[in-house]
């Protein structure tokens, strides 16, 4: 019986080539999307699970509020890990990772390479994380100072072999002995370092609980409830943090601290949550967002659903053609059950063919998808058992979903009626079919609106007045490598034609540069009432000029004032928090360092207009600028049409002044765009999916109109004989479908508005959704539908009426 079903199914597919193609292409496209997104989602969900103890590893997060701003950090203080291990038996092991010290210059032959993926770690690294060692003893590898653990590819890069045990690597002019070579860290890890240096080699004022700079992970013993464990942090705060805080602030108890509106709170984040659910200050690398996983999964399902709907619509529309067969089968005694089985077999067969094509499409498209999604997925990932199960189940599930309605609909025919040819065509179920078409267009229009809004927001961010001028600012990285030549370099480059001004600083208004947060007080003795935390940046005299930052009142740093080393320029937010009517001339105080408790004073000499130094997702926080040399970057405002030759000159100068040091540059606007890379990926992916959804919806429309024209061949013939023009016929055939698109628009608008409004809430600075977006999206859908319809309706309208009458 099954072979009979398959035989009929196959012959039907071959016989109705157009419909079969529409079905198969639509389904294959939908399934290909589904496969790609599954690969993406499975990869995203797999982060950090390569660790054998993944379910027992937790990162200590810190939530701190001091003064005005509350910050959520991915880091904690340096003694925290050891303290927990010492005081609580539930903690089996801990490890700290310090990665915020910037890159190191590593010597290779006669040149220096800037290595960014470096970390200082505790020797317990291998007891917590699963990092397979190729050579060396993991337990001993990081116990001695001046040792280093490198990955296999790093070993090959520097020594041409993974056989690098005992060899020496020179980093920042210090020799380190390779004590272990580990396998490359899997790409699906929330950290990805090439070099692990021991903690002993880190130059850091260890011992304070008040400074948060270490990513700290604890391995809890089996069966420990991490939520319950978090309650112990209250004790830790009381026992260790309070005594240190008391020294520098006037507080008698932690309650004083909390009462003033401050907060200090620690929590444990499961390792496997970090990649998708952590968006904190000082992440090792930007993480992904679980929201996008939800959105993509939903979009994939919707696209698949659109393709299924095509299948249902076309199958039921064509029902009159199958009616006779159903009638005969019923007369011959088959039961409804058998017919349902037959039609389901047909749809499953179609889906199996489509799935095979979809796999090929996915394989072909994967490189482009990787490009857009910034992934390194491989089609081999399909062999993952979880996906394989899906790939086998998918045709069956999709086949049943898309085939069930036609199956029940067709098998319900009365044999007497259909054999007499009384069936009034497939239009009986036209209201349901119309509903499904509306659904398809609702989905498409929502996606179109979403795409337009994502693009408008990105455009808004990129062109928004930021309070500084990001255009034509050349940034040279690693200016510290110039050492004493740094001023020579700066001066020589500023004298080049086309260079307007220059400045050297580690702090730039893009998130990839340095940040430094400190606590500022308005009085000499710091208390919770008179202090707040703020960004504190060291800049030069020419900083504002080079970056186009405007002074609101007061003056800039000037070489004419010898006292400017004790001067500070604040931004408008800081001025507002301080609350002075006239802030110029007022003094602020800050700790020289956490250990000594000595306070230094600064005089406010100027206020700059607020500029966006963080992503537009955040409000502009307080900022204090001091006159200080911070040699992270050299920035040049340029005004030239031949940027290329200028860069070449700068590079020549660099090579002369910093021989052997790597030259790398970028432009401020490029660095700025980096901050919105994830939105840009989302934007691109949204466009692709919106297009696919529309293509699939239009394929379905195309099929339905073709069917409708075929059904009405006789009617069209009669109308033409009676004098209808081609235009009349086209209008007649298109009208009904266009009505559906209009209805779909009306339904889609509020849905899209709601969803996109929610997305925009993520941005502090965002666009208003204009009415034109909806009009544009509606018109786009309408025009595309009209074009699709015209293919078939024109053909039908131009057909010879005599011929069309004869076919009946």
């Amino acid at each position: 019986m099954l072979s009979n079903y398959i035989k009929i199914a196959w012959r039907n597919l071959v016989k109705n080539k157009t419909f079969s193609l529409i079905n198969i292409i639509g389904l294959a496209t939908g399934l290909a999307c589904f496969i790609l997104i599954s690969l993406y989602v499975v990869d995203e969900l797999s982060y950090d699970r390569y660790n054998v103890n993944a379910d027992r590893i937790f990162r200590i997060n810190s939530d701190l509020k001091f003064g005005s701003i509350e910050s959520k950090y991915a880091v904690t203080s340096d003694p925290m890990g050891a303290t927990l291990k010492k005081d609580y038996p539930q903690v089996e092991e801990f490890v700290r990772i310090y990665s915020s010290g910037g890159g190191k210059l590593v010597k290779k032959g006669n040149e220096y390479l800037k290595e960014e993926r470096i970390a200082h770690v505790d020797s317990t690294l291998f007891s917590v994380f699963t990092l397979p060692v190729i050579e060396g003893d993991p337990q001993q590898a990081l116990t001695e100072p001046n040792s280093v653990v490198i990955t296999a590819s790093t070993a090959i890069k520097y020594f041409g072999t993974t056989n690098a045990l005992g060899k020496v690597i020179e980093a920042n002019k210090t020799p380190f002995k390779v004590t272990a070579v580990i396998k490359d860290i899997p790409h699906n890890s929330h950290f990805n370092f090439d070099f692990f240096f021991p903690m002993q080699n880190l130059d850091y004022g260890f011992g304070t609980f008040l400074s948060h700079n270490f990513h700290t992970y604890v391995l809890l013993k089996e069966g420990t409830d991490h939520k319950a464990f978090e309650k112990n942090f209250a004790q830790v705060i009381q026992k260790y943090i309070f005594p240190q805080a008391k020294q520098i602030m006037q507080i008698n108890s932690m309650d004083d601290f909390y009462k003033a509106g401050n907060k200090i709170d620690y929590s444990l984040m499961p390792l496997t949550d970090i990649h998708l659910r952590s968006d904190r200050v000082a992440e090792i690398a930007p993480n992904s967002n679980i929201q996008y996983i939800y959105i993509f999964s939903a979009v994939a399902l919707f696209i698949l659903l659109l393709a299924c709907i095509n299948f249902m619509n076309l199958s039921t529309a064509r029902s009159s053609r199958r009616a006779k067969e159903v009638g005969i089968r019923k007369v011959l005694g088959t039961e409804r059950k058998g017919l349902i089985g037959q039609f389901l077999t047909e749809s499953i067969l179609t889906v199996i063919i489509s799935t095979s094509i979809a796999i090929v499409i996915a394989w072909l498209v994967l490189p482009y998808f990787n490009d857009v999604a910034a992934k390194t997925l491989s089609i081999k990932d399909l062999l993952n058992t979880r996906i394989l199960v899906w790939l086998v189940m998918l045709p069956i599930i999709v086949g049943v979903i898309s085939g069930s309605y036609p199956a029940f609909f067709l098998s319900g025919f009365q044999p007497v009626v259909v054999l007499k040819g009384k069936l009034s065509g497939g239009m009986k179920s036209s209201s349901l079919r119309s509903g499904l078409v509306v659904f398809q267009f609702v989905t498409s229009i929502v996606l179109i609106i979403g795409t337009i809004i994502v693009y408008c927001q990105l455009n808004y961010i990129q062109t928004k007045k930021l309070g500084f001028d990001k255009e034509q600012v050349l940034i040279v990285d690693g200016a510290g490598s110039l050492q004493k030549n740094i001023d020579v370099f700066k001066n020589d480059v500023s004298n080049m034609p086309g260079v307007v001004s220059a400045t050297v600083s580690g702090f730039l208004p893009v998130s990839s540069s340095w940040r430094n947060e400190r606590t500022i007080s308005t009085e000499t003795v710091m208390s919770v009432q008179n202090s707040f935390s703020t960004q504190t940046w060291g800049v030069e005299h020419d900083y504002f000029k080079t970056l186009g930052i405007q002074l609101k009142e007061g003056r800039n740093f000037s070489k004419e004032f010898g006292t400017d080393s004790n001067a500070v320029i604040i931004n408008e937010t800081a001025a507002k928090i301080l609350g002075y009517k006239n802030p110029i001339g007022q003094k602020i105080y800050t700790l020289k360092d956490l250990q000594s408790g000595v306070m230094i004073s600064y005089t406010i000499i100027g206020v700059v207009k607020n500029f966006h130094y963080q992503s537009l997702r955040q409000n502009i926080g307080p900022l204090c600028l001091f006159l200080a040399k911070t040699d992270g970057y050299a920035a040049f405002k340029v005004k030239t049409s031949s940027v290329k030759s200028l860069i070449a000159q700068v590079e020549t100068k660099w090579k002369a002044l910093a021989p052997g040091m790597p030259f790398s540059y970028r432009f401020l606007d490029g660095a700025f765009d980096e901050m919105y890379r994830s939105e840009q990926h989302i934007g691109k992916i949204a466009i692709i999916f919106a297009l696919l959804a529309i293509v699939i919806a239009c394929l379905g429309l195309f099929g339905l109109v073709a069917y409708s024209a075929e059904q009405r061949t006789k009617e069209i013939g009669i109308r033409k004989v009676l004098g209808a023009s081609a235009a009349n016929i086209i209008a007649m055939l298109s009208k009904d479908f266009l009505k559906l698109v209009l209805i779909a628009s009306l339904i889609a608008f509020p849905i899209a508005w709601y969803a996109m409004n929610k997305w925009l809430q993520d941005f502090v600075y965002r666009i208003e959704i204009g009415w034109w977006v909806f009009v544009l999206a509606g018109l786009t859908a309408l025009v595309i539908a009209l074009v699709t319809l015209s293919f078939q309706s024109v053909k039908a309208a131009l057909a010879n009426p005599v011929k069309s009458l004869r076919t009946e």
Partner: protein
Amino acid sequence: MIKISNLEKIYRTEDVETVALNKVSFDVKEGEFVAIMGPSGCGKSTLLNILGLLDDPDGGSFVFAGQEVAHYNERKRAGLRKQHIGFVFQSFNLIDELTVYENVELPLLYLKVGADERKKRVEEVLEKMQIMHRKNHFPQQLSGGQQQRVAVARAVVNRPRLILADEPTGNLDSINGNEVMQMLTELNDAGTTVIMVTHSEHDARYSHRIVRMLDGQVVLENVMI
């Protein structure tokens, strides 16, 4: 074998009520060959559909092989149909996507007959209908006469007790028509009950008895000699 009494069938639309069968009663004995005649719209096809368990009556009784079947549900009717009844239509009603062989095989598939037995019986009946040489062709590749022979082959392959023929020669020329009538007669001679709806007095003469209908009622039954 068949006993119907006071059978009624009424078609209703919003404001028109059409009585298709108005208290029809008659019997058909096992092995009989009955022709039903009458002008268009007299209810003969409705009657045949009810006899073939394709449609259910609105009133009256229908006893088929000793069972009252008038109110059987679709599943039960399908069961009886595939076991006991063969159909021959004016328009052949072969499935276009299946070959001659597969069309004839279909009823046996629904009866879940084993593969070997199926092959034997299909070939036997194709041989008998002299279309064995066409077994791998599709219906559109055959002449009308050949198609009807395939339809007859399909109707008899499950060895039904009753064959219902709805104007079996209506779409055929006289030579092919006579051939089909000959086949039905042979089947009847072999013991199968045949009920045939026809417009043709010539075809009706092959039967043992003619039931004449008018406006949903049996008006005359004459026995052929």
